[in-house]
């Protein structure tokens, strides 16, 4: 019976999988050759580019068409999200592998509302907010908003009261963009919205406060503080911790008054997830064996660490299938000397190293 349901579920998921997600932008699209030729052709093409991306919903296409550079920024966000995901999952059974020429860049893996899906949603929302905020700071995006944090009744132009931080627009944009795809009324949508928000909050929570005094004689009678955008790696680390402690939830409908749907932990004795926690609905699929339909590559051929007791250890990573040890010649850059700005003089060191590969 259980098997039957699993098959049904998979079939349903495959039916849905026609729609990809915006992080498909990280995959090299067929029109990149055109887009990269020169800036002028890019500017004339950008509208078409956005329309051609079938994995975007209508609102996302609108946002994409805001300006010439927007699609570039979106692409940067997607690329960084995938890169960061692969870094964070480098030791896991599913190493955030991407599939070429698929409707979804991660294959069908994320059709399960698993921990991994939660992580990818959060990370991509965070990476988008981060990329947009960076573009704002660089002055590339003219659209960055200037909602002054001073009250509405004062004149709201920049010269009067300045602008809000760039991350604010980044978050707003990320919310508008990634959340527009999700439907609040489905369980899946509710969970994705929660995880997107958790990702954005991870960026905000990692901001670093810097202050400068410039009062009389440079004293601290007048002090101004601002916040620095964190490195995406820090956000990835934070989300990775959240991933490990993610909550398994179910959607509870409250009939009283309006139809309010809320996320509650699966088991009553577990802590209620707060806004920064990641949540998931289903257990992860089996990542050990290859599954072409889901785009799971399996752990066959992965390098493992014989001495580690963690996830990257051979026992866990190879799913108990055992491993082969090969001695390989290893080449590595060593004794590097860095010359500002752009040169690194390194020697190449060769040594032999044991290499463990899963069966």
């Amino acid at each position, binding site marked *: 019976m259980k098997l039957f349901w699993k098959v049904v579920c998979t079939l349903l998921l495959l039916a849905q999988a026609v729609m990809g997600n915006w992080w498909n932008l990280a995959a090299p699209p067929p029109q990149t050759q055109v887009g990269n030729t020169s800036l002028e052709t890019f500017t004339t093409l950008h509208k078409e580019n956005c329309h051609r991306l079938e994995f975007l919903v209508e609102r996302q296409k609108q946002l994409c068409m805001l300006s010439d550079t927007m699609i570039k920024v979106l692409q940067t966000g997607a690329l960084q999200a995938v890169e960061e995901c692969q870094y964070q999952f480098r030791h896991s059974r599913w190493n955030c592998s991407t599939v070429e020429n698929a409707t979804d860049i991660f294959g069908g893996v994320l059709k399960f509302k698993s921990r991994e899906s939660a992580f990818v949603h959060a990370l991509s929302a965070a990476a988008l907010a981060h990329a947009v905020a960076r573009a704002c700071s660089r002055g590339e995006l003219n659209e*960055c908003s200037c909602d002054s944090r001073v*009250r509405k009744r004062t004149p709201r132009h920049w010269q009067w009261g300045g602008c809000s931080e760039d991350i604010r627009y980044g978050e707003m944009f990320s919310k508008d963009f990634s959340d527009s795809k999700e439907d609040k009324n489905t369980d899946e949508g509710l969970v994705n919205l929660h995880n997107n928000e958790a990702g954005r909050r991870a960026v905000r929570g990692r901001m670093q406060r810097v202050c400068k005094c410039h009062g009389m004689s440079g004293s601290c009678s*007048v002090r*101004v503080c601002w916040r620095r955008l964190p490195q995406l790696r820090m956000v990835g680390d934070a989300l990775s911790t959240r991933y490990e402690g993610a909550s398994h939830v179910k959607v509870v409908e409250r009939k009283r008054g309006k139809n309010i749907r809320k996320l509650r932990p699966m088991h009553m004795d577990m802590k209620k997830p707060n806004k920064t926690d990641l949540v998931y609905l289903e257990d992860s699929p089996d990542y050990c064996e290859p599954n072409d339909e889901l785009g799971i590559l399996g752990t066959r051929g992965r390098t493992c660490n014989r001495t580690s007791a963690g996830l990257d250890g051979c026992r866990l990573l190879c799913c108990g299938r055992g491993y082969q040890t090969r001695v390989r010649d290893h080449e590595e850059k060593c004794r590097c000397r860095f010359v*500002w700005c752009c040169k690194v003089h390194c020697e190449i060191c060769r040594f032999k190293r044991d290499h463990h590969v899963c069966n």
Partner: protein
Amino acid sequence: MTGTIIENLSGRKLAILVSFLLFCQVTCFLIGGLVAPMPANTQNILGTVCRDMSIVKNDTTKWYYNRGKGSCKTVDLGETHHDLSETDIVFAFQMPVPRESKILDYSRWQQNLIGVLQVDIKYHSQIEVQPRSTITIDARLAYRNKGDPEDQWKLYTQSVEKRHLDCDIDVKSEEYLYNCSAIPLFELGSLFHDYYLLNVRLPVETPTMNSHIGHIQDMWLTVINQNGGFTKVWLSLKTVFFPCIIGILVWFWRRIHMLQRKPVLLEKMLLALGLALCLLNMPIEYLTLHFDLPFMLLLGDIRQGLFYATLFSFWLIFAGEHMLIQDASAQSSVKQYWRHLSAVAMGCISLFIFDMCERGVQLRNPFYSIWVTDIGTNLALTFIILAGISTGVYFLFLCYMIWQVFINISHKRQSLPTMCSVRRLHYEGIIYRFKFLMLATLLCAALTVIGFILGQVAEGQWKWDENIELEYTSAFFTGVYGMWNIYIFALLVLYAPSHKRWPVVENTSDTQNLSEEMEFSPLPSERGSSEISSLTSFIRKTTID
């Protein structure tokens, strides 16, 4: 014989005056909190890495920027470029950055511009950054005005500067960034032009130059400017206070000149205090809207310093004049207080020298910082510590003097019961009002300190209610500024000589005062003497009693 107004003012009138001043105080606070935006605004600008294609690298007519006509070719520093050398890399910061699809420009109301640089350095196990290394920066600042062609940047200033780079890292792993301290880069005392452009290069002229700074990935510039709205509110306050204080000063001085005697020391001090406040209030910032005046930051410091010096001196002399130990015949002068005032002078002079060394030199070179060289750091620290010691000594001295005054008062008060009732009531009134003013001073000082600490503790903005958002920092500044103006206004009013001895006075309704007048007149020691406060005369009278 003269008293001051505070002694002869009825309780009701005093209450009215005090509540009026309190009302003004609250207004000042609310203007800052509700109308003004926060005092300063920051913009974080991520540097665009431009490729310098020119052959002659020292050409200051060639500028690199990322927006508008003639923008530069960008380089990705994440990759290694073997065809590039350090002279080809320019970090360009074009300010202000655009918002809401509009190209913003600086307004002269924004007064000043401070630049702080932050570098993102990637960790490489092979190239570790030393905890305290020196970075050499070739910084060039250019400006452009509205209406100029987009590629016509003009050199504003240029300098090669050294700065300390303090970096540490928690996770020593590839791809992680160092946590580097912010580097103060420049301070412009006037924001005269519309657009600015900073080009930063990191030269390598000697083998050790810029060799231990690791792999710079990004450079962030945070530009801080005063908010236009804050300047407007601040200047309006000044424009209101300036004529008020001038007016009350004229009234005060005329009142003194109506007397037969010469002005006494405390009156002169009050006048000096008023003048120092006028200097502080003078809204000369209006001139910056039409002229390029880079010395405004320095001038502001000097004006503030002068005011503080006068205020501190006044408190000392005020306490000293109520010490009740001088002989009545001697006309007291500032010379008697030279020992007391030397602490104030010392503090002010050392701060002034420090300021001249830092902000004075910045007039010539906005990139200058005294803290870079060891000698400069020691020099600056010496002056700051000297100023700190002077302040400490001053406050100890002041507290000691005030304590003595209170001891004197309590001694004399013991003889109060032996006096007749009318006189006793009057004397108690004087003590009460003297203490009232002492209390006001303490209250003002305490409020300033508490407000300052609250501002430091609070994370910028305070929300007291869902709907009422109070801009606390601005409210603190306008509140404190208003408070000291009101304080000095009150001093000038209440310590002006009273004209009570003339038969036709404004306060005839105050019958008690009239009886006091009669009580006062027969005392021999009062005649012809020149005490300012009848507190002193009261003490002398009690000795006669």
